């Protein structure tokens, strides 16, 4: 079973997503910002990460840059409230293992489908 890391500065949202995913049987870990995620990444070694694009501290770009030097390079699903232009998408997708993005507020089914689609095995 794939390991999922939920990165969001909003505790309620983070825990809600965590609950949704664990109820589906995934092993999960939570991080409250970019630095937290990068620290936990080495230990937990997630396969998929849901990454909120708007958090205090490191920007999405910073996080993706940092991830380049890490041994574990999970697939990234971005959670956003803004729509990306093709140009922005292209930039983000080039930077790291960004595989998809979901616009908030999302449906339960939408999130789970996206995670399942990107799971290995």
């Amino acid at each position: 079973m794939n390991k999922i890391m939920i990165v969001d500065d909003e505790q309620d949202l983070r825990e809600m997503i965590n609950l949704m995913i664990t109820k589906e049987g995934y092993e999960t870990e939570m991080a409250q910002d970019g630095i937290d995620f990068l620290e936990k990444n080495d230990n937990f070694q997630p396969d998929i990460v849901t990454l909120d694009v708007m958090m205090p501290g490191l920007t999405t770009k910073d996080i993706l840059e940092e991830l380049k030097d890490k041994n574990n390079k999970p697939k990234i699903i971005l959670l956003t409230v803004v729509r990306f232009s093709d140009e922005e998408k292209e930039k983000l997708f080039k930077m790291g293992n960004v595989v998809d993005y979901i616009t908030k507020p999302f449906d339960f089914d939408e999130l789970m489908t996206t995670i399942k689609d990107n799971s290995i095995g």
Partner: protein
Amino acid sequence: MIYIRDKVGWGHKVDEREPEIVKFLREEERFGKLQSILQSDCKELEILDKPLENVSDDMANAIKSDTGKKTEYSELDGLEEKYKTIFENSAVAITLTDKNERIILWNKYTENLLGMNKDDLYMKPVELLYTPEEWRRIRSENVRQKGMQHHLETKMIRKNNEIIDVDISLSVLKNHKGRVIGSVGIVRDITQRKMMELELQRVHEKLEQRVKDRTAEILKSNELLKQEINEHEKAEWSLKIKDSAIASSINAIVFVDPTGAVTYVNPSFLNMWGYDSEEEILGKPAAKFWHRKEIYIEVARATFNKGGWVGELVAEKRDGTLFDAQLSANVVMDEEDVPICMMASFIDITARKKAVEKLRKSQMRIERQNVQLKKLDKLKSNFLNITSHELRTPMCSMKGYVQMLLKKTLGDITEEQKRGLMVILRNVDRLDNLIQDVLDISRLESGTMKFITEITDIQKMIGEVSETMRTSADLKHVRINKEIEGNLPDLVIDQERIKQVLINVVDNAIKFSPDGTVIIIRAKKEGKNVLFEVQDFGRGIPKDKQKKIFETFYQVDYNMDRTFGGAGLGLAVSRGIVIAHGGSIWVKSKLGKGSTFGFTLPVKLVKDVENRFKEVDVFMVEANSGEKENNSRMVKYIDNDKVEAENE
């Protein structure tokens, strides 16, 4: 008795007892005389010793009778000699002709005059002496018949064919019976006179010609003089005009002689430099009127050397104040290319310089403002993004938990709990839509809405919209029909935003449709646009409200529409999106019959995307520069759009 035979063959006898006649015949052989007596046509007479057979006695008698008379001649012999001498020595030509106009007698002078001798003259028709024309003229004068003396001027032919002018005095000779026996012509050579006359005439003509020529010359020179005067007057006039043009020119004009002294200034110069009269200036060095004399002198030198100079100088007024002048100087040359003077004209460009400076400053200010505005835009955009994030994140948690509860992920729930959770979920969605609309309006008004364009298949897009709306339509038992024209071109649009417009309009239509009715979505090409229409058969919108429904937070009947929910932001957002795409939106409605919402989107090729979204930029700039109060900007766009109504 002697006999004479004439050429015709008639014989004539002459009595030898009349010795004078015989002598006359033998010695003098003046046959002419005899001939005239005999009145014969013969040209030649022969004296014979014996008579001929055919002698006419009558003739003989006649001769006898005539010769009888001739005896009287002998008495006049002495006198005749004298006449003969006179005749021979006369300085005029005298010729005698017989009645047949043959020459029978002439004097020496005649021979001289005509260059002829006896052979040329004797018994020759006198007409041979004249040119044919002249002879005809003489004949026409009919001298003989007139029987009188006659004077005429004519031309005769000399032997060498030379034609000479003569004056002839013709007299008819008659015998004692009064019959014409010949004529005598006294001929004077008037060639000399004629030549003189001709010469005279020639001289006269020459003189006349000269007079004519001279007159013409005088007239011509008169005309030239007039022209010259005219031109002179014109030149003088043009000079006057130029003078007055220089004098009245707005430009200051100055003439400076090669020594650098001012020789002329116009009133504008006085005005510009603050002098009262030209006396204060004339004769003064021109450098006096400039701030930095050495620069002026440099300019003057350059002007004289190169023939002209254009540039700017700082001028010094009488009171010492300075001003910027634009100068254009030229050198005036004389005919030998020697400079006479320098002519310069000036404009006071102080005002222009100030204006340019002002413009530059205001441009800089605008640029600064632009930078600030851009910063502000960025701030606004960031603010809206953060607001969006902040407002929607809680929604996300709420929605997630409600969905999990409803899915019984977190344990069993009762039917009542389920109904309660469904109300929460519906209202969370409504609140989320409202937040989304409020943020969209803010973005449209602040010009920070982002449009992401892509090539869009209209048929497919409408299909998706209709599919999305099916659930809410089914709830009201409303059927959605589609009438889409075949072969519609693909559009380059922000598909999500246009879908949002269509969903707004269809959602409205569903809300206002009575149960069991139909909604029609149409799309067709119309000129350079694609026209979208959504028609319902609901209660319709009053004519005076049709414009207002596109305004922010406006609903046709606040109380009435509370039933259906919605804050009335959807149409305002739709209008903003359509206008940003270069289209227009409107409603046609009939109370009680229903409404048709329509909007257009321009058909443009993919390569025109940038241009298309320049229009969006225009919208954004407009939105930026407008007032922030309420929704005045949106109203402005709405007023420009077409609103059609079919109200009764």
